[in-house]
């Protein structure tokens, strides 16, 4: 069942220049796609390719200039349903600092449910469950600025989970983290997806994208490639044209194939590569 559906969506940023004229730049140029309920989709593309703009169209932070975005069948341009859309699609942003509202971890996690008028006793339950889901219960009384980047990002995720959304859009959540933090955040994303939450991950890290069910490649406001990680990373040359790369095991497998070693086309992970090589 499709949960998010874009239909010929375009988005223009409007800006007034010094002379008072309105200039518009087209950040998204007529894209159509759909995302299945419960799936894990990665969106990759270079800086300025429109990924973030697309993400913000998924929970009505931005409304399409033309075309439509549907969330669970709801047209996001229908302003009477704005809060229904945002309750269904939560969002986690890149900068771990700039999305935490409260100076106490658990109060921050409660912020979303409080906004949608959830009963106090239930908020308590949701907050506790969300924090234990990201393994941060021990930190619930701490001040966010004392936590590491990865921990802050997990708090932001808990804040999204406490809204009980059906889908979470992660807008480069690992870009500012160290490798340990990145790993922790990615584990949490996979765990949430395993629990049935639709996960949409925007990332610059190819090895993260490789863990998704489906990848969308964006460039210059358009979706240029779409498919499973195996299908996408087989096309290294095309990716290169979009300033992207392939994960290391894929690159090594293709270097080995060039040297005459026969390997299956769909190697994606180190585990599979090692297995194939020692056969």
């Amino acid at each position: 069942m499709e949960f998010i559906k874009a239909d010929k969506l375009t988005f223009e940023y409007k800006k007034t220049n010094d002379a008072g004229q309105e200039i518009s730049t087209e950040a998204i140029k007529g894209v159509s796609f759909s995302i299945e309920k419960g799936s894990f989709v990665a969106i990759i593309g270079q800086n300025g390719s429109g990924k973030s703009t697309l993400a913000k169209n998924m929970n009505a932070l931005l409304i399409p200039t033309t075309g439509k975005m549907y969330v669970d069948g709801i047209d996001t341009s229908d302003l009477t349903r704005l809060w229904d859309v945002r309750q269904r699609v939560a969002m986690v942003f890149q900068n771990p600092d700039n999305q935490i509202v409260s100076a106490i971890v658990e109060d921050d996690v409660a912020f979303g449910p409080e906004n949608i008028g959830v009963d106090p006793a239930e908020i308590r339950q949701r907050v506790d469950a969300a924090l234990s889901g990201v393994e941060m219960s021990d930190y619930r009384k701490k001040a966010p600025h004392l936590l590491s980047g990865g921990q802050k990002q997990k708090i932001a995720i808990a804040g999204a989970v406490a809204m009980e959304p059906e889908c979470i859009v992660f807008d480069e959540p690992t870009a500012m983290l160290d490798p340990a933090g990145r790993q922790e955040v990615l584990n949490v994303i996979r765990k949430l997806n395993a629990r049935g939450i639709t996960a949409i991950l925007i990332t610059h890290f190819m090895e993260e994208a490789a863990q998704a069910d489906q990848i969308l490649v964006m460039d210059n406001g358009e979706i240029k490639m779409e498919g499973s990680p195996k299908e996408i990373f087989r096309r290294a040359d095309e990716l290169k044209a979009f300033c992207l790369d392939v994960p290391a095991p894929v690159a090594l497998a293709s270097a080995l194939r060039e040297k005459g070693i026969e390997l299956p086309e769909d190697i994606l992970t180190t585990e599979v590569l090692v297995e194939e090589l020692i056969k």
Partner: protein
Amino acid sequence: MIEVKNLTHIYSEDLPHQQKALEDVSFTAGDGEFVGIIGHTGSGKSTLLQHLNGLLKPKTGTIIVDGLDITDKKTSMIEVRKKVGLVFQYPEYQLFEETVAKDVAFGPKNLGLSQEEIDERVRQSITAVGLDYDAIKNMSPFELSGGQKRRVAIAGVIAMNPDVLILDEPTAGLNPKAHQDILNLVTGIHGQGNRTVILVSHNMNDIARICDRVLVMDKGRLAMNGTPKEVFAREEELKSMGLALPDAAEITSRLRKAGMNINEICLTIEEAAEEIAKVRK
């Protein structure tokens, strides 16, 4: 040439939460050497960097750059900054001037150079970071794209013409192509002249590929100091410090454990392909 001897630093001394940030760190980096520093977050890397250009003073120990003791209280900070340039993480957030040229000129101006010298250095360093000087000099730095801003910020440090250039995670938050471009820029700058370049990074692939020598920091101590091959051969120790191997070394290590006869420590995908091909044929 930079010589670090027995450097120790303590944060919040005399307070209950005092902690040793650096403990007896000693190493030297020669002219023209490309040194990588790796370590888990909180291992003391950034404390070390801030000592290397005099932003922090050590509790004990000395740092001597080309004969100048920068830990000596009598040493003028301007002299230190002439010798050691430090590019912080996300350096684009420190841009402040109206135009790119003025911003890049900030450092040289602070060094008290003549106007001609400043103009010349600004032009050279903007060109050195791969930007078109004439097209960009009068633009506001805030109109530029993220990648361009970062280049301008790096140019601002290069314009001070330091003997030792230190970069803290210069590729953070960039897509693969932009990441590679910045790295090429850094190796390009290293290639010209006889500068010591020190690169701090979490990306083991980059460190393995471009550094002559790698320093590993762990809990405020210098845990390892050797060539990339020597350092990345010590897999167990690195992993116990929460550090990973470069991808190529990781894959070949797993193959070795699975019984494949690969002796060489592979640092790049090309090397790994070479070695595996040898064994498989």
